[in-house]
């Protein structure tokens, strides 16, 4: 690939936007929030972020919002991801890796059912006490 200029990027975006407009808004309002605190990164949160971007694109769902947040206080189950899909409970998944990302995209975001073995929504016990 040749080194892109900002102008190339602008053109690419415009062509993509047309394609997106034609496709129906499947994943609209879905949100994926990746915990990227120090230990999250150490546990592989960046790999998880990358995996969501490539998996969602591969499945043609490009209008999901993917954002980062800092420490979720859940070190022991990091990397953690919060997934918000309309009509489903907000869920925090723990111990997420690239494989689990595929499951979350296929089952939760597309199939609308939870990936039960990775659901984690309670903060660590020591943090609960202190708050």
């Amino acid at each position, binding site marked *: 690939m040749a080194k892109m200029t900002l102008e190339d990027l602008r053109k690419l975006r415009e062509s993509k936007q047309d394609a997106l407009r034609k496709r129906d808004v499947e994943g609209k309002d879905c949100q994926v929030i990746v915990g990227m605190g120090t230990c999250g990164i150490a546990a592989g949160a960046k790999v998880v972020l990358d995996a969501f971007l490539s998996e969602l694109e591969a499945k043609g769902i490009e209008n999901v919002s993917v954002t980062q947040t800092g420490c979720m*206080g859940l070190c022991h189950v990091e990397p953690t991801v919060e997934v918000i899909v309309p009509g489903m409970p907000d869920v925090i998944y723990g111990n997420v890796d690239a494989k689990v990302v595929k499951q979350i995209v296929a089952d939760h975001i597309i199939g609308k059912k939870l990936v039960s073995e990775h659901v984690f929504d309670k903060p660590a016990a020591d943090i609960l006490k202190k708050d």
Partner: protein
Amino acid sequence: MHRYVTDFILDIVQNSFEADSNNVELVLREDDRYLDMTVRDDGKGMSHQMLEKVLDPYQTDGIKHIKRKVGLGLPFLVQATRSAGGSFDIQSEVSKGTVVKCRFDLCNIDTPPMGDIPSTLLALVSHPAAKGVEIERSLSTSKGSDSYHLSREKLLEVLGSFTTVATLNLLMEYLQSQEEALDRFKVDHIPVL
């Protein structure tokens, strides 16, 4: 534990974001042997006492890091650079900002592998707490040299936002093309014992 140099980069720049900086500058300069990183911010800065505290891996404020103000990343970085023939320096002034400078010896066997630069820069540029971010990346080796500059503001102007998969993937493509242009000048780092 941190496994890549890029994990440190991400961590240190995140500290700058969390210090309420309006402008953060990241400089990554690589040659045949070293990677020099500078992170300069205009955030709230630290007093001398606070600086000592954040550099001490055994000091915590007892509330875990759920409400922490600075990352645990600094002591890790100090250790990772110094134990592998690199160097570390930090200057900070309250309400003026902080400058972190460090050097990784890429030929030292104890230096962690570099990691993925485009995906790290993507995480930085699209970070929700990021405001002004300027990134300067250069490579200069015996094979030749090249560089690129990224401005968060300019990228945002082109892409509109950094929140959807569609725009983030475009950003990723752009960042990869910048980094790939440097590839032909990269050299193998043969460990010197």
